[in-house]
């Protein structure tokens, strides 16, 4: 069966060793940081492109946030998605209820009725673990999260996820929402022709200012790191006896 798929991606900062904060502590200081698609969502884009290659249909990618989210939408187009949608919700970070409302609003504005909506299990930066469930509930669709395997059957999807030491299998009727995790596949690097095409692609823009929900961020803080200064055991192969002394001290050998 041919499938029309919508993938929701989030623009997230790509921090290095530390996450710098703004002076008022309300946000991550992104002046010197790059941005990326969250790892879970990158796998969602890859899976959507593969499913459309196999079954036919279309892959649309959507990002909600400031206008700069177009960068992540274009990256997904470069990976092989067919259409891009920017949901311009302004500069302020949205709470999860507002994010879900913006996505639901945008889905209503688009002409396609999607068979499958894919989201990341949780965003890499805020990690609220709920936007996909809220979108699915609002649209009256079934949803399962933590998915690392998708098979499309006739009118349904068979989904696998790992929980503890077990693998669980679900079978959802379409249309459905699936929240995926990294490990679902190995995402491709966009090709040069893909990038050039994505650069010129026309994006659909939907402007929407959702009502704020009931969770309000006050400020961000760095967690305490109570570790003592690192003990240098030596250089190169000569450090081996000191390393094994430590292993014995820790009782692991």
């Amino acid at each position: 069966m041919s499938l029309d798929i919508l993938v929701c991606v989030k623009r997230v900062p790509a921090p290095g060793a530390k996450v710098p904060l703004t002076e008022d502590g309300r946000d991550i200081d992104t002046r010197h940081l790059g941005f990326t698609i969250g790892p879970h969502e990158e796998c969602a884009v890859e899976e959507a492109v593969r499913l459309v290659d196999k079954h036919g249909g279309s892959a649309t990618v959507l990002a909600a946030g400031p206008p700069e989210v177009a960068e992540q939408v274009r990256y997904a187009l470069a990976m092989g998605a067919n259409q891009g949608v920017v949901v311009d919700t302004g500069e302020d970070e949205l709470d999860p209820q507002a994010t879900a409302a913006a996505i639901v609003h945008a889905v209503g504005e688009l002409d396609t009725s999607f068979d499958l909506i894919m989201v990341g299990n949780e965003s890499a930066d805020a990690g609220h673990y709920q936007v996909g469930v809220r979108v699915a509930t609002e649209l009256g669709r079934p949803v399962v999260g933590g998915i690392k395997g998708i098979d499309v059957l006739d009118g349904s999807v068979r989904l696998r996820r790992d929980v503890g030491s077990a693998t669980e299998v679900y079978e959802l009727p379409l249309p459905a929402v699936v929240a995926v995790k990294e490990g679902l596949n190995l995402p491709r690097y966009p090709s040069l022709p893909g990038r050039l095409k994505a650069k010129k692609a026309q994006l659909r823009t939907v402007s929407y200012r959702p009502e704020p929900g009931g969770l309000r961020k006050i400020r961000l803080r760095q967690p305490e790191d109570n570790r003592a200064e690192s003990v240098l055991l030596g250089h190169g192969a000569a450090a081996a006896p000191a390393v094994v002394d430590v292993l014995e001290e820790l009782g692991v050998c």
Partner: protein
Amino acid sequence: MLILAVKVDEHPAWADAVGVARGLTDDVHAVVFDASAVDELPKQGIRVAHVVEHEVLGDYAPEAYGEALAQLVKQVQPSAVVAPGSEKGNEVLAHLAARAGLPLAANCTQVGGTGRPWQLTRIRGGGMLLEDAELDASCGLFTVQPGAGPSNGTAPVDAVDVHRFTPELAAELARTRVVDRAEREAGVSLATAEVVVSGGRGVGSADGYKTLEELAELLGGAVGCSRVATNNGWRPHSDQVGLTGTKIAPKLYIACGISGATQHWVGCMDAKAILAVNTDPEAPMMTRSTYSVVGDLHEVLPAVIDEIRARGRVDQASG
């Protein structure tokens, strides 16, 4: 003030959720979907349990769990509902939140206040940052980060007052229910291994992990890797330590050729000791570790393996 603590599976963070709830009120009721779970409640000092029963709830079914909880909340009118910040705890409370139209704060380390609003602290980015936030709602919904509960125990009680609750669930809600389940292969699991020998960009190739495997086997541990290794196809994603991989808390984490970006650090920061091996003494993993060795892992690890074997022979000879 009444708080419901929801038990969705055997995840140990349930005790953390109960602990956080008890920090707010003495009136904590358990909600269980499996009647046999009632037996262990007296040990945790819980006097009242709501046992949710319905044929749709025969196996784990997140949508139906969420709808059942929404109906229970309507009937019991608690001030808040807490659940473990486990995959299933977060999933079930998200369904409750969506169906009841309530805000939800996931992975909280602290919850304070008496509502309208609640003050809370939650983790972001798997522990990269802490967020102080307010949650304003008729019923506060929180999941509790594993390990965040108070460590002091509670006095046990003699008996649990069991309330049976049968929600009205449409048969359609069975559409998101486990239809098959398989145990994965055993072996030393990354999540529970006492020692994890992990490699990143510095390993250089899939073949390069042979030395790490050898050391892990000698120490009875598991092999891990960074996201670079997974993205290069050197190791399967199931070996990945970090924000989008596995979060671990071994006795010892040996990080070889891993620079230590935040996304990796949050996966291993709960290790009791970290030994970093890297050619770059300024790499974040080297400065944040407990012990460090400056050098090429392909020279250091074989020497460590030889040293362990040599000492083992001496022990055997003298023993």
